[in-house]
């Protein structure tokens, strides 16, 4: 044991690191009980997004927008005369962690509500937590529908506010033959089921349907398949980094947006930067909001966001939906006069606010939003130009009950 002393020194170092972890613990435990949402002069709200891992790239931007909203509301005097205190937790791109952190926010921090999630998987993991503990979750991302939890408010689009309008647009442009490309998980698979039902009823033809694992980066074979099938358009439900590889490889295979436009539903302003404008300019996207959407509320939002986070940052649909969520909840609390969950739920129905995307109204029945659908084309400067919109906000229909062709889906 020549260097025992050295080892013991190391032992102390390692143990000290470990103790630091333990030492930090009690502060959260005690802090949690200090300000229950009812009493005191502050209201705690939870922000639960992935701050690490693969989803951090997207979710951090939503958290930033939510923090901005909290700050603005506080500046304007808070809610019910109380300041909002955001409690941020990291979902770490891992679904069980989302469930665990949601429990922590509700049980220990006693937050009044939680804003959070991005992937459907994280929402599905959190859903039982919120339902069992009768707490509120505001979920800010477009999703695959077929869900309506009494304890979740969905501020992103459901399928009839994004996918169906996207298909309407393709149909209007005479794109009869389409090819479906998606990441292998719930949203693309469900979206593609809807697309196939729509196509069958509207005289469109689905030439192929391909899924790749999340994080897949080798698209040469898939691009080859798409090119060989010669579709009029591609409907793209790929998620995250895969979009970068897909568009780069599509571009280098010589496919242009003129001959074969790709309609994407998970590519927003933020993603365009990483994909590279060269590779995606001219292709289509379907959302409810773009940074370029013309509206006084949006001008204010974009300006405030850039002032807080830097002029090179962009705003996107999920960010706007997260930003809205905080305002909508605050409005419901004001109307209810309390942060008590059942009262807030009851008060929320029918609330209408002028938001950056236009008028947003909460549908009290399914707790989704009335939203205006917008189709955009990606411009060479990385911004998205709106080329079509639905004219007025579309009533949310998560189960597509009002569409005759969708009868067999649910």
């Amino acid at each position, binding site marked *: *044991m*020549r*260097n*025992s*002393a050295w*080892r*013991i020194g*190391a*032992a102390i*170092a*390692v*143990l000290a*690191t*470990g103790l630091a*972890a*333990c030492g*930090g*613990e009690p502060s*959260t*435990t005690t802090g949690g009980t200090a300000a229950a949402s009812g009493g005191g002069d502050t209201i705690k709200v939870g922000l639960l997004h992935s*701050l*690490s891992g693969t989803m951090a790239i997207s979710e951090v931007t939503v958290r930033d927008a939510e923090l901005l909203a909290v700050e603005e509301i506080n500046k304007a005097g808070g809610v019910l005369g109380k300041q909002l205190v955001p409690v*941020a*937790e*990291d979902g*770490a791109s*891992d*679904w*069980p*962690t989302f*469930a*665990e*952190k949601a*429990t*922590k926010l509700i*049980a*220990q921090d006693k937050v009044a509500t939680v804003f959070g999630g991005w*992937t*459907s*998987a994280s929402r*599905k*993991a959190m*859903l*039982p*937590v919120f339902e*069992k*503990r009768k707490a509120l979750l505001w979920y800010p991302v477009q999703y*695959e529908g*077929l869900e309506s939890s009494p304890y979740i408010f969905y501020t992103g689009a459901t399928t009839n506010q994004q996918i169906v309008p996207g298909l309407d647009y393709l149909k209007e442009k005479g794109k009869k033959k389409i090819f479906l490309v998606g990441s*292998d*998980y*719930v949203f693309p*698979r*469900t979206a593609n*089921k809807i697309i196939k039902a729509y196509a069958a009823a509207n005289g469109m033809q689905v030439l192929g349907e391909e*899924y790749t*694992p*999340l994080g897949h980066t080798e698209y040469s074979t898939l691009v080859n398949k798409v090119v060989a099938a010669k579709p009029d358009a591609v409907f793209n439900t790929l998620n995250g980094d895969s979009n970068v590889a897909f568009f780069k490889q599509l571009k280098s295979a010589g496919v242009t947006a003129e001959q074969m436009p790709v309609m994407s539903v998970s590519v927003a302003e933020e993603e365009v930067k990483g994909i590279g404008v060269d590779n995606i300019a001219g292709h289509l996207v379907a959302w409810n909001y773009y940074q370029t959407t013309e509206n006084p509320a949006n001008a204010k939002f974009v300006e405030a966001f850039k002032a807080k986070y830097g002029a090179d940052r962009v705003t996107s649909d999920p960010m706007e939906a997260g930003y809205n969520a905080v305002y909508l909840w605050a409005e419901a609390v004001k109307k209810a006069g309390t942060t008590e969950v059942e009262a807030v739920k009851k008060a929320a129905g029918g609330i209408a606010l002028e938001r950056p995307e236009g008028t947003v109204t909460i549908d009290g029945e399914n707790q989704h939003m009335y939203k205006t659908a917008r189709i955009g084309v990606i411009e060479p400067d990385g911004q998205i130009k709106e080329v079509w919109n639905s004219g007025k906000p579309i009533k949310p229909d998560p189960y597509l009950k009002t569409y005759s062709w969708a009868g067999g*889906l*649910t």
Partner: protein
Amino acid sequence: MTTTVRNVVRVAPPPAGPSWRGRLRAPAVFVLVAVLALVVAPLLLEPFRLGLLAKYLCFGIVALGIGLAWGQGGMLTLGQGVFFGLGGYAMGMYLKLHDAGGDLPDFMVWSGVEKLPALWVPFENPVFAVAFAVIGPVVLAVLLGSLVFRQRVRGAYFAILTQALAAATVILLVGQQGLTGGTNGLTNFFDLFGQDLAADGTQRGLYIVVAAVLGVLYLVAWQLVRSRFGRLLIAIRDGEDRVRFLGYNPATVKTVTFAVSAGMAGLAGALFVPVVGIISPALLGVVPSLELVVAVAVGGRFSLAGAVLGAVVMGYAKTSFSEQFADGWLYLQGALFILVMTLAPKGIFGLAATARDFVVSRRPRTGRPLMSTGTADIGGPLIEAQEPRA
């Protein structure tokens, strides 16, 4: 460093070595820890924290298996998540069917599945589900092990092979959405054997079950290591060819050990699902499997207690660090590994033993052999961190 110089295997004294007091110390510590875990913790901790502790203990069970396979047997398995997942999915399938009460589970409805797949049918029976959670992983491990070990795939090759297995399993699970729930996995459970899963009482009961199972498995593993079989296992770790020349078949010993560790992981998975309320492919991929191996390394891979301790400590550290400063968790985790691997390859337990040796070596020797390792290594002999080359 001096590892090559100190390529000395120091074998623990035969069981009869230490005095009766020394022999009693290990059981005493075990009983103390058991009382702490089973009685004190449920009384002191609030339900949310107790649930977290139950989760760490589930990982502790997996870690126990890893300690057995890797620490004692030298098989670095980076695919324990697969066995954990098998157990978890078996339990999840039962819970899902039970909640659905004769209907299709919710995710199948929205995946467009119309009839309950044949694979799911037997899982309506809770006994089958629990049995499968253990037997399934064991069978898979025996199959894999008997093929792989007979071909003398070992060391790094074995590690990468198991890693590939974990990666492939995840892709397979994610791809079969109608059958497995895809990326979402199985979640939203309500009821376990008639108990409301959300109730604090149920969670407390589950915690006690998990802690008790861990205790029993620990005793089993300890006994296994102390037996002739365990000696053989360690001999294989330290020199597989030499054991073979002595007329033993290392493949059989390794396969059995691997199967035991797989069974433990499966059982842990089955317990994890009601405790945490979800099982998803993310839990059995490459990263969680690796994280557990690292936890074992941090705790001390050459001792079973160290392995369990490592899993609990790392689980706890992950939760509290991510609550304190989420962004820094990766740095901390990474730095912790680097520190432990370079400075303390035997982990916390190894350090404790070293510190004691250090103190003992300054004292006049007593009748006790210097290398006796007492409670710190009840799991096995101390050995300088020297693994057989791949």
